[in-house]
Each structure stands twice: as C-alpha cells, then as structure tokens.
C-alpha cells in the first residue's frame, strides 16, 4: 500500500513537471499575447435570480498588459471575476502550474483539459480548469475558482476572431448565494404573502455577445482614464 502511494506521488510529480510546459496552454497564451489591444461592442444579457435587468449595450476596451474598460450608457451587471481576470492570471506562466488531461467534447470539438494551479498563494485564484480546443488554440469552457467570488464557469463561442482567440459570445454561470434583502428598503405594499426569497444557492447566467472587434488598432491610453 505504501509503495502504491509513493508510486502515485511519483506519477503526479512527473505530470506536474510535464504540465508546467503545457503546449496547449502555451499556444493559447501566445495567441492571447498577440492581441495588443482591442475594442468590441458588447450586448450584455443577464439572467440572474433576484436581479431584473434589460439587455445592456456596452463597448469593451482592452490594452496589454492589463488595461480594461467597459463603457456602458447605463448600469450593467457582470460577474465579479469577468473578462480580464483569467487572462491576466494566465499571462504569467511562471506563477502557476498547468496539468493537461483529456477533456470532454464541447460543441462537437474534442478538448484538452488543462488544470491550472497557482504557485503564488497570495493570488485570489484557487484553481482554474480550462477546456481548450488544441487545434484552434481557443478556450471552449473555463472554470475559475477564486477565494473571493467562488466558482465561475464560462462558456465561449467563436466567430471571425478565432485567429486572435477572441470569442463572439461568453456565457458566465455564477453561483448566486443567499441574497438578503434589507427589509426596510424592500418593503412592498402589494406583497401580502411572506417574501418568497430563496435562500438556497441558485445559478445565474450572464451572456455577453461580442461583435465588431477592432483588434490591434493602437488604442490610446487616454481611453482608460
């Protein structure tokens, strides 16, 4: 039994060593880094329990290394760990270990699953799982677990920006935990029955449709101010 455990540990160490040089992830990161800047029109559709919001149009700006801005005319709801966090985390391979394994089939594409574990304990990310289409070097699904916000699953769809690895839509699935309404604020005269607030965790979904990418056009820094 002891021998078996030692064997498993050995295998694991070997795997980790191999994963740190994950070709699949490296190829993706290389592709990611080829995008110096972009702007894109976004349509944000949120279906989150206890939040009613109509679809919102926005313009998203990004510039290497970590400049990011969402310009909305009104109020938009997005996952707390949204667009940038995963890419920002992946952009520095020295800060994590990556383990490749066989992934599942997503939208008819066989993926490779890459499990990313941070080396630096100070980072907010606990674990990231990526299902990558190794042929096109694009993420099909990601699952990011952070200390502050729990788990966020993102499903990607692509159109004409595949060469840059930029998606045409993102579907964020979030855990909505026990929203508590302050009673004084939420007093409702027409609510004759007791509040039906669900205290159980529920799933929320935020879909962002991205169109009209303008990639590497040299965005000015002033946009991000």
């Amino acid at each position, binding site marked *: 039994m002891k021998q078996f455990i030692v064997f498993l540990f050995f295998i694991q160490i070997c795997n980790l060593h191999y994963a740190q040089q994950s070709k699949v992830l490296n190829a993706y990161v290389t592709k990611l880094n080829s995008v110096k800047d972009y702007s894109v029109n976004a349509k944000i559709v949120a279906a989150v329990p*206890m939040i009613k919001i109509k679809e*919102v149009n926005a313009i998203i700006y990004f510039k290497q290394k970590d400049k990011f801005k969402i310009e909305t005319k*009104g109020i938009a*709801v997005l996952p*707390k760990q949204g667009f940038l966090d995963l890419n920002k985390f992946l952009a520095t391979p020295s800060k994590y270990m990556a383990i490749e394994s066989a992934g599942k089939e997503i939208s008819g594409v066989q993926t490779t699953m890459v499990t990313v574990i941070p080396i630096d304990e100070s980072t907010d990310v606990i674990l990231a799982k990526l299902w990558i289409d190794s042929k096109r070097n694009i993420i099909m699904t990601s699952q990011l677990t952070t200390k502050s916000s729990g788990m966020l699953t993102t499903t990607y769809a692509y159109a004409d920006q595949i060469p840059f690895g930029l998606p045409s839509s993102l579907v964020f699935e979030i855990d909505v935990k026990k*929203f508590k309404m302050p009673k004084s604020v939420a007093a409702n*005269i027409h609510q004759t029955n007791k509040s039906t607030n669900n205290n159980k965790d529920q799933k*929320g979904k935020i879909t962002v449709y991205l169109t009209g990418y303008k990639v590497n056009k040299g965005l000015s820094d002033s946009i991000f101010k």
Partner: protein
Amino acid sequence: MMFFKNTYNEFIKIAAKPRSYIGLIALSVLIAVIIFAMKADGSTYISFVTASFEQTLSFSGDIMNGNLIAFIILQMLIVHIPLLVALVTGDLISGEANMGTIRMLASKPISRSQIVLSKFTAGALYTLLLTIWLGFLSLYVARWIFGTGDLMVLTSDGLIIHPESDIEWRYIYGFLTAYLSLLTVSTLSICLSAFAENSIGPIVSTMAIIILFTIIGTMDVTVFDTIKPYLFTTHMAAWRSYFEDPVPWDAINESIRILIYHNVILVAIALFQFNRKDITS
C-alpha cells in the same frame, strides 16, 4: 362663479400665510441635506443596497445618478410630507373659526358647500404645488447635480434595473399617485378642520391618524389583516409600484380606487358637517 371667486380668495389667503412657506422651505432643506449626504457619501448607501450581490457580481455604470437620488428622496420624504401638507390644510376651516372670519365668510351670499369645496380645491392646489416642488427638486435638481442614468431599485423581489429611457413615465405616474396620497392627507385634515375651532387640533389629529394607521398597517397581527387593505396609509406607498417589473397594475388601480374613495367620503363628511354646523365662534 362664486366658487371660483372664493377659491381664488382661498389661494390668496394661503399665499399670504407664512406657514404655507414652511412646507416649501422644509422640503428644500430636507432635499438639500439628502443631496449633500449622497454627494458626500453615496457609495456607502449604494453598497448597502448592492452588498448582497457584490460577492459574485460587479455593477458597472453610474449607479448614483439623479434618478436614484429622486427615488431615495421620495422614499425618505413621503412619510414626512403629510405633516407639511396638514400644517396648511388642517388650518383652512378651523383657522377661520379661530380668527373669527368664518362668521364673516358664512354670512356672505356664498353657500356653505361652496365655501368647503373651495377650501378643498385650494388645499388640493397647495398639495399639488408641494408635490411639484418635491418633483422638481428631487428629479430635476438631482439630475442636474448627479446626471441621469439607469435606475437601480431594491424591491422585495430583488434588484430591478430600469433603463434610463424607461424611467420618466414611471416617475410621472409615481408622482401623480404620490399626489393622490398627499391629497388624501389634505382632505382628511380639512375634514377634521370642519369639526374643530382651533388650528392645532386638526393638524395633530391628522398626524395621529396617519401614525396609528401606519402602525396597524405594519403590525404582523392577523386580527388587522381584514382592515389593512382599506387603510389609506397602506396605499400611500403605491407610487413605488410603478418601479416594479412587471408593474402590478391591478394592485395600483386598487390603491388608486381606495384613495379616491377616501377623498370622496372625507369631502362628503366635511360638507355634511359644515352645512349643519351652527357658527357660534
């Protein structure tokens, strides 16, 4: 004709009374205080509202805008404005009895019903003026200071975010319904005023009734459940319903109906009382 002439008289009297301006000044000061507080520390208020969601979600865009400020002001002040209304309207009949002018008025060739109705009309106009002033300060001044934008409202069903383009009509209907609530307060105080011969009695009685009904309305006791829907105070927050999604039209219509019934009944009581009253003051 005599009715219009006396209504004009009533408005001159209201305009000349210093107490009529207390409401407008108090409203201005209260709104200025709220605007100042929100300008200085609005983010704390916002995080109080969004705290439950902030662990997993982030809100982008300008939440603290004029539309939200107007909503906050309305929510905070709708409880206190009845006092400002009653301060003027509670004095309309009893004040004349107190001053002795009622016998001068009632010995003129104008019917007592016309006297009472013109007082109700003047009271309604004053209440309208107060509501318009409230609307102007809370909506237009707040928008001028904070800018405009989508409106985030917290209801018992959760957060509702109304796009900017979908707000104006809600505020118009909201203010109209709030006006109907305040009109009920005005009508109640004038009705009580028909029974009294001093100024302070109807004002205090109006507030006492509002406080009593509000307490009954908020107590979670089944014995009051049957009367709660018929208390006008239950429907004083009906303006908020326009900010729900979907708008509960049936409930709003019910609130409007009950408020109108109150107004009609209170006017009828005042007419009956004032017509049968011997003027001995």
